[in-house]
């Protein structure tokens, strides 16, 4: 009996710790495609190194200081009628020691910090420029080298440094690609810069990180990192996309083409990736048929989701700037979806998800 109760007592004592371990293990088992802890590019790796330096020092300090606290609490627990403890007012030696030791630790943190600040600030050489334009609640990407405009999906060739030039069309946003780089705010009145390269192929999510209004939560995007050849064919396809992809012969999609005009979609959207008409408030839709996500990285690009989005953008993304006048019937929806699905300048990307 006695043994058992001791065993149970032990178990009770350890159970919070066990629960904690189980929880952390469960948490670790999750897949985190947007994590900062698994860098896949040089910028993010340098940042991660600095972070891990701070973590190591933090754990050391944590153990020592919290340890001292716990020891003190256990060791010096008193009773009301205990004699008055020795009245100590301080100790200059100790106080100097615990001013100097943290200072030394801080220097150890400061050195890599300063180093990486300056390294990441360097102008990258031989980089592909991509202009990033933040819009309330989607992202526009332009490739001045190739004269291409696209939205919400940034194609990049693997291993090539990308030099971002960023500006906002409205309020302050922040461009964040955790696995390749970090964050940089995007302002309406100044250009900000950041660079990154990708060391692997695959699709990686990113997200706006500065509160920018009602749909800040749904202002995502993808970085699609592909082999150079594949990138070149994407560029070729996009530069040729001055007209919508022809749907001649497909009567449903042809109806959709008509509806795209009559439902005024054309007022806000264009399929011209090479020379988009200026002043349109919606994302460029060239290649929309083969993007993986729609509505700023938040809905998977299936026919059902596409139909849902077109018929009720406000229902899915309340406050979004896509407003449809009037009702759209089921048949009209099907036609529009067929038409949009046909808009593929490259075949659906064959990229294998290379995430973790």
């Amino acid at each position, binding site marked *: 009996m006695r043994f058992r109760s001791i065993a149970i007592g032990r178990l009770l004592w350890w159970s919070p710790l066990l629960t904690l371990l189980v929880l952390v293990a469960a948490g670790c088992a999750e897949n985190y495609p947007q994590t900062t*802890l698994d860098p896949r590019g040089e910028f993010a790796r340098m940042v991660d190194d600095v972070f891990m330096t701070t973590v190591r020092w933090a754990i050391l300090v944590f153990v020592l200081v919290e340890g001292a606290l716990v020891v*003190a609490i256990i060791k010096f627990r008193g009773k009301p009628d205990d004699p008055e403890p020795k009245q100590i007012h*301080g100790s200059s030696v100790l*106080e100097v020691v615990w001013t100097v030791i943290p200072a030394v630790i801080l220097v150890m943190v400061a050195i890599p910090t300063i180093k990486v600040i300056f390294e990441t600030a360097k102008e990258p050489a031989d980089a592909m420029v991509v202009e990033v334009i933040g819009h309330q609640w989607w992202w526009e990407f332009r490739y001045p080298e190739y004269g291409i405009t696209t939205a919400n999906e940034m194609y990049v060739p693997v291993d090539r440094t990308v030099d971002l030039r960023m500006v906002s069309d409205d*309020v302050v946003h922040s461009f964040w690609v955790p696995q390749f780089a970090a*964050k940089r705010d995007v302002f309406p009145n100044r250009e900000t810069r950041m660079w990154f390269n990708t060391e692997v192929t695959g699709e990686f999510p990113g997200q706006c*990180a500065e509160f920018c209004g009602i749909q800040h939560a749904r202002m995502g995007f993808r970085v699609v990192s592909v082999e150079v050849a594949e990138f070149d064919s994407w560029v070729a396809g996009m530069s040729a996309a001055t007209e919508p992809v022809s749907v001649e012969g497909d009567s449903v999609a042809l109806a959709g083409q008509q509806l795209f005009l009559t439902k005024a979609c054309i007022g806000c959207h264009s399929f011209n990736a090479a020379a988009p008409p200026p002043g349109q408030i919606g994302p460029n839709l060239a290649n929309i048929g083969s993007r993986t996500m729609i509505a700023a990285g938040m809905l998977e690009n299936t026919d059902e989701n596409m139909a849902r989005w077109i018929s009720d953008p406000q229902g899915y993304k309340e406050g979004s700037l896509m407003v449809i006048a009037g009702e759209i019937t089921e048949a009209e929806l099907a036609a529009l979806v067929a038409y949009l699905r046909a808009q593929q300048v490259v075949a659906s990307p064959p990229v294998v998800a290379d995430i973790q």
Partner: protein
Amino acid sequence: MATSAVEHAAPDAPAAHSKTGVWSWITTVDHKRIGIMYGVSAFVFFMFGGLEALLLRIQLGSADNTFLSPDVYNQLFTMHGTTMIFLGVMPLSAMFFNFMIPLQIGARDVVFPRLNSFSFWMFLVGAIVLNVSFLFNAAPNAGWFGYANLTETQYSPGLNTDFWVIGLMALGVASLAAAVNFFVTIINMRAPGMRLLRMPMFVWMSFITQVLLLLAFPIITVALIFLMADRYFGANFFQPDANGDPMLWQHLFWIFGHPEVYILILPPFGIVSEILPVFSRKPLFGYAAMVFSGAFIAVLGFGVWSHHMFATGMGPIADASFGLLTLLIAIPTGVKIFNWIGTIWGGSLQMKTPMYFALGFIAMFIIGGLSGIMHAAVPADLQQTDTYFVVAHFHYVLFGGSIFALLAGAYYWMPKMFGFMLNERIGKIQFWLMFIGFNITFFPMHFLGLHGMPRRVYTYPEGLGFEFWNLIETAGSMLLGFSFLVFIWNIWLSKRAGVAAPADPWDGATLEWSIPSPPQEFNFAEIPTVHARDPLWEQKRSQGRPLPEPPRVSGEGIHLPNPSVKPLITALGIGVFFTGFLLGSPWPIPASLTINLPVVLIGFAMTAYGILSWAFEPA
């Protein structure tokens, strides 16, 4: 028998004017009553803020949840932050400033009692303006940091931001009035013999806080006036199209905002520095170092604002400078933590509820401090900023820090304030519930942030791996919320049990424990003379412990300031004046007039009347 009872009662009877009834509270200029009004209203708002947080947590409990609409979520997170900072932690500290500073320095009241009353009413006006917005479904929704140019009319057309601007302006007036008052009070009203380096640590930290308030609040007020000018009168301070600059807002906001962080944490530092020595039965370790590290933190606090803006791309030189200065703050902060541990080391720890909370404070604040160092490593911050990692950090500092310490203060000082003891057992239960609930709620936020969850998002999609920890956090937050119900329950039960608090229940070191609990209106029948730090310990050492219970005396002949309603009239006048800015013009022309001129003028007249009649009223 009967006559002697009457005779005994006589000295207790109210002296000059009636001291009961609602009117006596409305017109009171007694710093203790004002303190209690601050405390009660702040606690109510704090509970509001907590409720808002719980709603946010429910929404985030699962991916793509639709419990709250995006706009309601944005209103709630904005109000949660604004409330906790301006209507929760700050006025809870103000409660202790009001009640305890005069007692700890051996004074009968503050220097400007009516200004004190005015600051409370002004606070209430601001708090009500902010919260009334909910009735119009137009609560502020652009974040407590209100980043321009999102707050400009074209992106925030509703009244939401107007409520925020006006509410914060009113609160700024309240804070400045209080800061002037306590600054002068601490300088001028100390009992004979209480030299600066004999002041209790709570008074010291409060003093530094007043300096911060005096320097920081004008800056946010300027920023708010700019924003108001943009929104109401077509100015262009933050309008990029007209060469205004949203970055200007960020600088102004954080030059205020970073010192604000120390405004929130220094008074709790002071509270903990009072409690640890008393319950360790040993003086504060390194008193002078504590004072100077507090002052050093405050000075540095004005030089690090841009560490909130590393992601804006200020360039490597600015990043490096602000990063280094921020790292530097860790040194005085570390000194404080080590000195606290030095205080309990070798002591005889009396594990009463206030001590639990004070020790919990140290344990949690260390964690918040360490994640703070990670933010100061600029490149690391470029990943962490605007993610849940930061949310974890500042909750460890402001909840694990400030709130734990404020509760320590509540358990420590409420017997003095209200004259009854709180239940120890329930107090400890509350501590453990809160401690566990707090860590379950906030620790996983470190993981979420590092794994890529941005903050201020009303939802997150499936597939990013955020579901698991969010659900755990939501569960933890319920426990945390519940712990505050236990606190209320404790107060209620303890009040009913009515265990009278002696003058000095904890073997205290400072002057407030030398007078009856609750104190009489005049505080000290005789102004004490101070001969040392920890004056009451000093006295007990020479006269023997425990001291006899101090008698309640009549206070005949002690001059006290007269009650006055003028401060309330003035505050209401300002409230009416501001309301005119929320109502819109009653006339169609001129179309550019966006304010209700008649109401504004009435408010102006009321304010002017309040101030003038106040000036000529005999104090």
